[in-house]
């Protein structure tokens, strides 16, 4: 397995989609290739950072204007149903 081939299988490896034999070949390459081991670490870190930053933007607050707009839209919809 080349480094390029390993990189192609990274997501499948992390998502648990590799067959046992494939995983064996993959892990053997990792053992023998320090750059790929480092690449895997940074690949996992990129995914984790993305999740942490995006979820870190989460907010429980709802603008009162939006609440009112939603309730008004519901009332208008009910009027239309009558």
């Amino acid at each position, binding site marked *: 397995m*080349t480094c390029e081939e390993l990189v192609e299988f990274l997501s499948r490896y992390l998502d648990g989609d590799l067959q046992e034999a494939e995983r064996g070949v993959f892990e053997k390459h990792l053992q023998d290739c320090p750059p790929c081991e480092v690449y895997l670490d940074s690949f996992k870190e990129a995914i984790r950072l*993305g999740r942490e930053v995006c979820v870190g933007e989460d907010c429980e607050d709802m603008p009162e204007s939006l609440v009112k707009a939603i309730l008004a839209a519901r009332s208008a919809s009910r009027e239309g149903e009558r």
Partner: protein
Amino acid sequence: MDADERQLVEGLRAGDEAAFETVVRRHGGRMLSVARRILRDEAEAEEAVQEAFLQLHRKAAGFREESLLSTWLHRVVVNAALMRIRRRKSRPEESIEEHLPRFASNGHHAATVAPWKGADEVLAARETRELVREAIDSLPETHRTVLMLRDIEELSTREAAELLELSENAVKVRLHRARLALRELLDRRFRRTEA
């Protein structure tokens, strides 16, 4: 579903306005966060949330008790956000190819692979968080959307494929390329510099 939620769902089914308002206030903030992440536009995010709650109003009578309300609302707002993305005027999308890693003819990495700085060190600065956000936002929209649905919203491949009207294989390919591109975009800033 706990007793409190069961009571809310009963109220929704009966068309009770107070129950509806409670659901809006209890779940709306999180739904707005989800819509913001996907749409990156405050006005569109608010409209997607409004559409999602209108759907709740229309479908409340048939709401099945087995589904958790929060799960259902999450899916509806994701779908509303994706519909808005589809309605946006299509503009030429840059190719993801330029963000993918390069390899030599023998299959080895073309550039030196260097370890990254530790996460705490990286995320401490607000500008660093903005940098990660910018990297995600710079991905071509088709790939960014898949990344958001799978890695951020944690939908399954099947769920993402249904919402995006793609095959599961297409979702897997796009997700992988999005992850690779994100890694490459961040690599420049996060790699440890030589002492």
